[in-house]
């Protein structure tokens, strides 16, 4: 039973990780990285590591996304519409 849950979580996590590299919009890439951290914290809870799951959820899904988004705002690269400059 736990193996099926882990299979779904790992598949979603790897899909979101690939999406981080494929999105053109940088805000979408940061959101995909936060999704990876959230699913990883669920996997940590499955592995009987509640301290690590708390830390990953607070830091990876919360603070890391906030730090990267604040940096993006200061760089002036937040773009919620169409993207005209190509950045890979």
């Amino acid at each position, binding site marked *: 039973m736990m193996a099926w849950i882990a299979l779904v979580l790992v598949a979603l996590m790897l899909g979101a990780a690939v999406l981080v590299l494929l999105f053109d919009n940088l805000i979408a890439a940061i959101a995909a990285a936060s999704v990876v951290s959230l699913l990883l914290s669920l996997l940590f809870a499955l592995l009987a590591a509640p301290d690590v799951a708390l830390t990953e959820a607070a830091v990876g899904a919360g603070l890391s996304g906030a*730090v990267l988004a*604040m940096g993006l705002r200061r760089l002036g690269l937040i773009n919620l519409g169409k993207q005209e400059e190509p950045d890979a």
Partner: protein
Amino acid sequence: MHKLASLLFAMGLAALLIGLATQLPLGMTPMGVGQAILERAPGETGSANIVTSVVLAYRGIDTLGELAILFAAATVAGLVLAPSIHAESQARTKPRDDAGLVLRAGSDLLFPLLLAVGFYIVLHGHLTPGGGFQGGVVLAAAFFVSFLARPARQPSHVGVVLIEALAGAAFIGIGLAALLGGGAFLQPLLDQGTLGQLVSAGSLPLLYLAVGLKVGAELSGLLAHLAE
């Protein structure tokens, strides 16, 4: 071509590593040190959360190293992002007005709740999953949410730096007090009460309180530097 080559290399490396890792005894680890710590931790440190006793008592030096790394990263980020003397960066700082009603009302309601949850997680680090780092992140998030709602009203930088410095000094001070008492550096002090009580496990809650305040002040200062 370059992208295809790196993709093939990564896939080959992943296949090799997965083939290697399935041969390892994962899932049936022969825990040598782990088993000894699991048997002796409640008796020696008095904390119900064994990971806390590992982080603060058995591997306290690693936690001190982590605090040093966080301090270095936050300080250097603050130095790098300090407003320079050039005229173009001074022209860019425009006064940001307050956010809308939803964000302001939400942050006013969330700020005391986040502070309460953060201090709860910090102070109960030796009983339930949690501790200084998780609670410190929640405390930093409390100040960050109030900063997002009212960007013009920030906590003073001097106060934040003072709290961080005093908390870090308190951590090292407790460790040195153990050294002066005849034990090793960062050896757990004070009387261990009964297992499972809030006031138990000697100096471990005090150490985690210092860690929580230091991490919270550091991260909120870092976010304030990034935002302005």
